[in-house]
């Protein structure tokens, strides 16, 4: 596997929906193979940021993007970006588990099949490896033909992670992946994120500050479209440099 987890460089990124700017002049670097937690009050632009990285933001009518984003050497912003290649590099896990209404197997095999892999042995190995990576294999082995909807919410979310991993991405975007889950399932996903560290660059948007503290190496705090502060998680949580960050972390904000 040529899974050299890449750096992500963001330079003067601004994003507007119509004439409303939701991200304003954001510049930052995420070191490869690390987990970056993105925190901030609702509407601060963190979900938008995530959707810029895989250009899912394009689906919003009237969106404008200025600035530069690079995943490794890959130029993300521009009119002629190969979105298929980008999205194979940059996988995503959504806020609500969104398995397709197919079997467990077909969900995980969806991405590889898109890439033209038809060989059933190869598919089976890929699916098994991805499910193992997502710590779901032990729970679903022998039930691969069951509909994905028969799994519990937490299992479904791990299935979605397995589905994303099956495409062999280098970056994993996670948009509040545990906000719809119970504490036990949340803990499992957090454990999972820790095991993915190193192999993937992970950007985790979360509302759960403890979660950010537990799993991330770096934390970025956003407010009203501005990047207020980015630093090693320990520093941001113990000695924030900005007053706004401190207010947010201590609950005096929002």
């Amino acid at each position, binding site marked *: 596997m040529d899974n050299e987890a890449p750096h992500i460089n963001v330079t003067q990124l601004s994003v507007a929906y119509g004439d409303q700017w939701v991200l304003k002049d954001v510049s930052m670097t995420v070191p490869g193979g690390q987990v970056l937690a993105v925190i901030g009050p609702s509407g601060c632009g963190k979900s938008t940021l995530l959707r810029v990285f*895989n250009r*899912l933001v394009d*689906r919003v*009518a009237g969106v404008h993007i200025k600035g530069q984003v690079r995943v490794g050497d890959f130029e993300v912003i521009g009119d002629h970006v190969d*979105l*298929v*290649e980008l*999205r*194979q590099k940059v*996988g*995503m896990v*959504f806020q*609500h588990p*969104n*398995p*397709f*209404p*197919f*079997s467990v197997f077909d969900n995980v095999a*969806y*991405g590889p*099949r*898109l*890439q033209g892999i038809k060989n059933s042995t190869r598919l089976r190995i890929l699916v098994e490896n991805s499910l193992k990576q997502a710590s779901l294999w032990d729970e679903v082995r022998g039930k691969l033909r069951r*509909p*994905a*909807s028969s799994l519990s919410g937490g299992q479904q979310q791990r299935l*979605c992670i397995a*589905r*994303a991993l099956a*495409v062999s991405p280098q970056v994993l975007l996670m948009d509040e992946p545990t906000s719809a889950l119970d504490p036990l399932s949340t803990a499992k996903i957090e454990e999972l994120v820790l095991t993915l560290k190193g192999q993937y660059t992970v950007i985790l948007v979360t509302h759960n500050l403890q979660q950010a503290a537990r799993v991330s190496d770096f934390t970025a705090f956003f407010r009203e479209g501005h990047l207020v502060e980015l630093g090693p998680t320990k520093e941001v949580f113990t000695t924030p440099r900005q007053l706004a960050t401190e207010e947010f972390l201590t609950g005096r904000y929002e």
Partner: protein
Amino acid sequence: MTVHQKNLRTERVQHALFLAAAALLIALGFAFWGTLGWGALRFFLRHGLNRTILGLRYHPIRGQFGLLPFIIGSLAVTLIATVLAYPLALSVAITATMVLPRRWLSGIRQAVASLAAIPSVIFGWWGLAMVVPLVRNLGGGTGFSVAAAGMVLAAMIVPTLSLLAIHAAMRVPERWVEGSLALGATPDQTLGRVVLRSIRAPLVEAGIVAVGRALGETMAVQMVIGGQTFMPRSVFAPGSTLTSEILNDIGLLPPGALGHHVLDVMALLLLLAMYGLVLLVERIGGREVG
């Protein structure tokens, strides 16, 4: 009397009314099946299956009651209509829900729904003016044909089918589409592998509803099919369907006339076909998505 008691009483009255209505409907249904079934049964006993359902010659005044040409006609017309209408309706639905801006959707739905309300005789006149000459140029002959009837019917069922397909497509959650795109699928791949695949059951259901509509349509078919009582030699030849022949002969064979029961048999065949379609819809509708 308290408001509560009043409400209770109103509820009881309403309940009784609904019960009466349901009973009436069921009784009517039984009466309908019974009348048709009784007439048809006596007819079968008298003439035998070979000279009715499997018979080829039809001339009710001369006592010939072969219905096979009409059965084949109904099947052929319905098949042509469905095969022509289905892809068209599917593209309408996909364009409306996936391609065009979301804010146009309700306008499109209203437009399509109003098309579905056009009375069938209008489609008949349109078929006479446009479709029959077209078929005449395509396939030779008079233009009055099984093919023309199929095409007119296709035009008739496209709005209904589109509407059902739009409703089905709207049931596909945005998060499946996003999930697919995020895995590197192109919009086309997303359409084929997620959207259409996930609504296969409602789409089949919509198809069956459309088949039912095509099978039961009468006036528009009668005006363009030619009304011949032979087995059609090709799709470009004239023929008849069960419905169009009922329409042709109902004036000749009023209730009580000799041979009227052949119409009962034809109606019963249609009723049975419809019943079969309903069962099919229920089986597919009951199946879980996935």
